[in-house]
């Protein structure tokens, strides 16, 4: 991703911090506001970062995945459900939560398998396949949630994943707050670095990018295009599953229908805005996250503007980002095109 774009994002985040400082003037010390703003940004950016990474795996291999939203929602529900049952079965809290995370990853993988089968093997239009999964996820989670818990007391989820203190960094006064995060948030950042390395420095990454750019060329040098695409879509599904786990196992210990609220689509926007690169997508996700952090802070500091207006900010930023005002980004050349073997 170009340096200009990184600078634009940095500047936008600084502006958002500035606005927050102005809102909180006199209510809290400026440093505390900034630190808390950044810590919140990191947290709320997590599902966006993971969703964007999920999209990068799929689309770099040539499969458009607009089903990230559905995969997240499905994973959020089934992860939560599994943790409840595991907790009720007497597992300790941490173990129950881990069972929940595993169930979320599995849900993401299964939905991704469905997407891969439809779009790679049966060559269904990838947008249609993704739409079907999104609708399926809304319907299935909504139905099961109602069927299982309607008019009865919802069983208590075991809780949320515990905060991890990064040694040394977390002990710094005030600023250390940024380095006290929950595991999925930390994992998301690690995955950004890992994905960058995988994509640009390994055999796997080279082949993945090749099948996403020019699958026939990859085929003629003996690379199995279908296998590479399946594998990457499945990895993408697992990562979307992790994003889903964030909602019900890390952020809050509960599920509500439609909980992901379009984050999967904003994640896609982050991926595009980040030019299909992990660090680019991450910085875009942080920008959208910062917009959300502003909304949270605005409420906290009692801004007189209706919160719905501030709540629109991430979505408005998304639209601006996609208009190409900050320059165009270029998708992989074979993105969204089914590969037909000769």
């Amino acid at each position, binding site marked *: 991703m170009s340096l200009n774009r990184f600078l634009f994002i940095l500047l936008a985040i600084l502006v958002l911090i500035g606005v927050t400082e102005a809102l909180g003037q006199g209510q809290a010390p400026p440093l505390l506001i900034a630190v808390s703003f950044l810590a919140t940004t990191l947290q709320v950016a997590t599902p966006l970062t993971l969703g964007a990474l999920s999209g990068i795996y799929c689309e770099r291999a040539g499969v458009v995945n607009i089903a990230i939203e559905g995969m997240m929602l499905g994973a959020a529900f089934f992860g939560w459900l599994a943790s409840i049952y595991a907790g009720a079965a007497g597992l300790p809290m941490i173990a129950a939560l881990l069972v929940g995370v595993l169930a979320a990853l599995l849900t993401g993988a299964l939905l991704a398998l469905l997407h891969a089968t439809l779009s790679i093997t049966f060559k269904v239009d990838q947008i249609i396949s993704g739409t079907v999964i999104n609708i399926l996820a809304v319907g299935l989670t909504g139905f099961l949630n109602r069927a299982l818990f309607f008019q009865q007391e919802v069983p208590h989820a075991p809780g949320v994943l515990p905060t991890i203190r990064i040694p040394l960094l977390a002990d710094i006064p005030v600023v250390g707050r940024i380095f006290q995060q929950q595991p999925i948030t930390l994992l998301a950042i690690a995955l950004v670095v890992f994905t960058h390395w995988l994509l640009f420095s390994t055999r796997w990454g080279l*082949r993945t990018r090749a099948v996403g750019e020019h699958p026939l060329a990859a085929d003629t040098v003996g690379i199995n295009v279908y296998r590479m695409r399946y594998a990457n879509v499945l990895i993408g599904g697992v990562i979307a599953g992790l994003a889903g786990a964030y909602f019900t196992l890390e952020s809050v210990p509960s599920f509500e229908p439609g909980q992901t609220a379009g984050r999967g689509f904003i994640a896609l926007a982050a991926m595009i805005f980040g030019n299909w690169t992990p660090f680019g997508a991450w910085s875009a996700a942080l920008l959208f996250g910062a917009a959300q952090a502003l909304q949270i802070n605005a409420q906290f500091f009692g801004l007189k503007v209706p919160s719905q207006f501030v709540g629109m900010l991430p979505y408005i930023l998304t639209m601006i980002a996609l208009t190409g005002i900050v320059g165009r980004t270029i998708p992989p050349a074979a993105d969204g095109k089914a590969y037909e073997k000769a």
Partner: protein
Amino acid sequence: MDKYMDREIVLEARNVTKTFPGVIANKDVSLKLYRGEVLALLGENGAGKTTLMNILYGLYHQDSGEILVRGEAVRISGPSESIRRGIGMVHQHFMLVPVFTVAENIMLGAETVKGLSLDIATVRRRIRELAEQYNLDVDPDAYVKDLSVGQQQRVEIVKALYRKADILILDEPTAVLTPQEADDLFEVIRTLQAQGTSVIFISHKLKEVLAISDRIMVLRRGQVVGETTPAGATERSLAEMMVGRSVLLEVDKQPAKPGEVVLDVRGLRADDDRGQQVVNDVSLQVRAGEIVGIAGVQGNGQTELVEVLTGLRPARAGQVLIAGTDYTNAVPRTITEAGTAHIPEDRQEDGLVLSYTIADNLVLNTYYLPPYANGIARNEDAINANAEKLVKEYDVRTPSPFVPVGNLSGGNKQKVIIARELSRPIKLLIAAQPTRGVDVGSIEFIHKTIVAQRDAGAAVLVVSAELDEVMSLADKIAVMYHGQIVAVVPADQATREDLGLLMAGAHLEPVTS
């Protein structure tokens, strides 16, 4: 016969047959390739050359017959199998990822790794070694999208050598090259041959086949119809074998009788898609009853010039007059209605709607006029009658005028365009690369049609990357270099050498006419 024939047979096909639904692509084809020889496979488009090579490379599987590599019967399950057995193929459409570097493209599928990471340094070194050994100049760190077509082809060859290929299949390698680049390629082939590589060279260009090969096999309609050596063949005899009847290789035409100026271009300037000025102060006149040919290496502004003349690209400065009226920056329909016919360079992209029927493609420029339209409704009867008539008149080989035009071969697609453009009264014909990728039989027909238009009084502007075509077709030759017309020469006074130098940017003494 061939001096290599006492050597080892490295690759052999025995009685290979391959059918596609409705078509026999290869019928009982047998072929032997000896170590270190250059075998040319000659045939028209659709003769089955590429199918046969794709079978040898493992992209298709034969219905019957055998493939032997170094005497061993093998089943080539896919490209990785053929690569393992030392077969490399340079496809007609390059198999390179434009956004990858040369090194990334070359190692793809055969990566060297250090631990888990790619070992670019080693790959880079090996590419440099190969480049030196075979005299193939490639920069491992350049991005493929920034390379010229000739350079990309060298990357493809290095890619095959990197995989230790000693049998190299080149599918129509010169189709996209300039004459100079083609000469460079022949040098490379000779170097490869000297170091023991066997080469199958696929082409439909007779001169090249005679120049480069040790042995020539001719395919027609999926069958081997003959085998010869360059010493025992002439262009004429090869063309006859290929087409199955005698063909006229030279253009048969009378001296031109130029009339009024029809196309008058004055000081024209235009930019390419990236905003670079590539048409740089071009002035040019074409008179009724004459053919002006534009010669030049591809990418010297010819494409953009034609696009400006036909209304597809804006002119930045200058004027385009057709029969005295200003048509600068007019829309294509206005220019068409002024009596201009356009045979576009890229027939797939700009000449036809591939999914439409032949009948519909034949009225793409007149569908809104009677008799093809009744107000806003189509008149199917008139459209169909027009199609039946033109398909016959222009000898379009098709089962019916109502199949999608995309199903036709290159030559027949071109005939559809020509039929559409020339079946109405025209004043000006602008033909860009009219015979590119077209077989010998169709070339003859297309040239005859263009000359007939001239004789009927049309002004004709032909742009071609084939110097031979420009020289035999044109009455006047304009050489284009770096966006400028650097010389205009009467065709009967032009020599290949002079034109070649002008095309390469050399300044000659003014040719006096």
